[in-house]
């Protein structure tokens, strides 16, 4: 807010200070991204922007995602799993302190998990915690978590940003003043503009190289381009204008990192709406789509084709793109067999991201080529959630499913695809009860084949994660296995 007295003194100071900017050591960084977090509590909202700023930097969980997507130890240094797979005993690291100076112990873990699964919980991923029957404090550094049935992905679930450990002492103000255990402490949030973090000198792990971090929020793609070009920002994650990337690649001042995300971008299909309830029709749609044309046209070449709902960088991924290769003649034949030689008309409802809006136009023309007419309507996210996701009032839509390892959504018959296959559902139940890696692997592969063969959705491409940065910045994550901008390992080259 405006304070005249402070203002004049600060004004005089700033004139002196501004001359010194170029001389400061390179331990500060400005990271820009498109979306600003709505608030700063990762445990009560779905907004990925919250994790993009705070995950691993400010908040940590019992386990965590590493840059390759694997799950490693976080605040828990080790764990034991009971023989039947229903009891997890976590040994916590010692000497971990929250940023307000209170110590992090077993009671905080119990508090955090109980809060997430409580009846009045507003955790956006409450389902992650639904199997927990009891969290008990064994001693200050030991927590025992009991599950109702074995859950092979439990350690994975605990690595989510929605499962970070928070403290009862600071929970009240968490939305505007987040207090975690991470390598950076929260300093300041100028809403609409930036969030500032600074190095946590009491951090339990390796101290980060960076001293001060500023996250800046620039939503307009043209403004994003200008801010990077003018070097107002050092890093721009998920750069919103792929058409400008070649320009940065050619400029020695910058580096462009091209990695992948957990975002399966799919042509979601309403499996209960005629004629899309006919597998032949869905197969025809799949063969009518030229993925490369969409990647080139909508994403300027950034993106990896997929043939099922799984991230290609995952070791268990099966390349099933051949199952739905681009073949308009086959597509027409299939439509004729299904009784639609004259084609049909359906709706194509597009949410705001450019992959959907640009991709939608291309898909519409590809479908028209085999006789399928689409009525395109552009929706805001809130409308999309209401009409498409909750109301299931749609034929086709395009959306990127960014949650990691989310093939389990196909086991939910009330999910907006309305895919109801008991065989798949029992496979997922079996998978949840399996902890042995080899068996899990083959089950996941079977699941990928099943949905690909049923042509549940049109599988388009894995969303790319492109970061533009100053050429001297080291240690940035290339991939985005979860929505995070982990700066703990980032530094400046001399």
């Amino acid at each position, binding site marked *: 807010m405006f304070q005249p007295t402070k203002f004049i003194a600060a004004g005089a100071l700033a004139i002196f200070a501004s001359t010194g900017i170029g001389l400061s050591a390179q331990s500060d960084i400005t990271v820009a991204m498109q979306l600003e977090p709505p608030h700063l509590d990762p445990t009560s909202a779905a907004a990925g922007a919250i994790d993009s700023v705070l995950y691993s930097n400010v908040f940590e969980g019992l386990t965590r995602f590493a840059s390759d997507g694997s799950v490693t130890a976080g605040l828990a240094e080790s764990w034991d799993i009971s023989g039947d797979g229903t009891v997890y005993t976590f040994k916590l690291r010692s000497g971990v302190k929250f940023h307000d100076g209170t110590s992090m112990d077993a009671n905080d873990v119990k508090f955090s998990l109980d809060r997430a699964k409580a009846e009045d919980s507003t955790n*956006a991923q409450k389902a992650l915690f639904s199997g927990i029957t009891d969290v008990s404090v064994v001693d200050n550094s030991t927590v025992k978590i009991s599950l109702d049935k074995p859950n092979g992905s439990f350690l994975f679930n605990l690595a989510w940003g929605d499962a970070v450990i928070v403290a009862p002492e600071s929970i009240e103000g968490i939305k505007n003043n987040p207090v975690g255990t991470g390598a950076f402490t929260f300093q300041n949030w*100028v*809403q*609409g503009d930036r969030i500032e973090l600074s190095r946590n000198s009491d951090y339990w792990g390796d101290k980060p190289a960076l001293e001060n971090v500023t996250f800046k929020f620039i939503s307009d793609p*043209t403004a994003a381009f*200008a*801010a990077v070009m003018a070097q107002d920002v050092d890093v721009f994650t998920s750069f919103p204008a792929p058409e400008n990337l070649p320009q940065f690649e050619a400029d020695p001042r910058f580096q462009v990192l091209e990695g992948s995300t957990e975002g399966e971008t799919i042509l979601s299909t309403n499996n209960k709406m005629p004629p899309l309830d006919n597998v032949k029709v869905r197969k025809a749609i799949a063969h009518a789509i030229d993925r490369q044309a969409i990647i080139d046209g909508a994403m300027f070449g950034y993106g990896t084709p997929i043939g099922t709902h799984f991230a290609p960088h995952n070791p268990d991924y099966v390349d099933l793109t051949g199952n739905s290769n681009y073949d308009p003649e086959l597509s027409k034949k299939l439509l004729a067999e299904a009784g639609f030689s004259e084609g049909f008309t359906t709706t194509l409802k597009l949410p705001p991201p450019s992959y959907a809006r640009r991709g939608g136009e291309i898909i519409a023309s590809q479908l028209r080529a085999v006789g399928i007419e689409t009525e395109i309507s552009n929706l805001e996210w809130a409308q999309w*959630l209401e009409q498409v996701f909750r109301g299931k009032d749609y034929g086709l839509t395009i959306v990127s499913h960014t949650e990691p390892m989310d093939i389990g959504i196909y086991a939910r018959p009330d999910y907006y695809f309305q895919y109801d296959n008991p065989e798949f559902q029992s496979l997922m139940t079996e998978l949840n009860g399996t902890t042995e890696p080899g068996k899990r692997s083959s089950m996941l592969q079977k699941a990928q084949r099943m949905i690909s063969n049923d042509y549940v959705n049109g599988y388009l491409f894995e969303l790319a994660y492109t970061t533009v940065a100053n050429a001297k910045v080291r240690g940035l994550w290339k991939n985005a296995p979860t929505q995070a901008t982990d700066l703990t390992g980032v530094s400046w080259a001399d």
Partner: protein
Amino acid sequence: MLRYFLNRAISLMISLCLASVIIFTIVEIAPGDPASFMLGINAQEDTIAALRAELGLDQDKLSRYFSWISGMVQGDFGTSYTYRSPISNMIADRIWVSLPLALYALVISTLIAFPAGIYAATQRGKAGDVAVMGATQFGIAIPNFWFAMILVVIFALKLRWFSAGGFVEWENGIFQSIKSLTLPAIALALPQASILSRVMRSALIETLSEDYIRTARAKGFGKRAVIWRHALRNALIPVLTIIGLQFSFLLAGAIIIEQVFFLPGLGRLVFQAITQRDLIVVESVVMLLVFAVITVNFIVDIAYAIVDPRLRRRV
């Protein structure tokens, strides 16, 4: 004068009441539930219900309307659904970007428009007039967001005189802050200056053909003295109207410019709030802007009465 003032004040109150009903209704009718938007696609039904209860969205619309209005009368705009902080604080922070930006743009626009308009009027039909009119035609035709991008390319990327956007807070130096608002203010001011100089020109030309101007000239006053002493003051009424309208437009219409220069102003707040379905923020900020527009018009009405004494009697 008092009757005129009261009359205007009553119409101001009625406009505000009507506006509040219209804004509330439109925003509430628009599809999209804030709670399900915030919790995303993996949220469970009971979680959404819990959040709706926490936000007070489970109450009926009429009682929400009245608690909104009664809070606003006491200066309490409520609490943002997404940010969970008091809206009055958020507005107070943002207004120190938007208000100076609007004033800055208005000053630039007036500084360009007055001399340009007066010059064109005195040069009526001559080359100078044609040049000014051509330039203003151009200024009106250029979309200001495009002009803003061109300014960024020239002054931020090529010449590096300014940063490409962002706002330096007032606490960090008044000159730095003004500098960071300069490109956006110029971008906003250009079309306004063009409109204003045209209005200035035609208003002045009209008064210059009045009988009393001829009388003044006949009395031996020089051309310049007549313009300054007699014509300009009488030409100001339409110009004041436009300035009043422009100020409200500059305050409310900076949304796109604030996006292009990523300034944390009111426009950006509304823009974010709309996409996040932060209904109460949208309602409150729009209401505030309506209040600003209506108040500015009210002030302009009063200013007419001061400039033109005849209006005081003619109610």
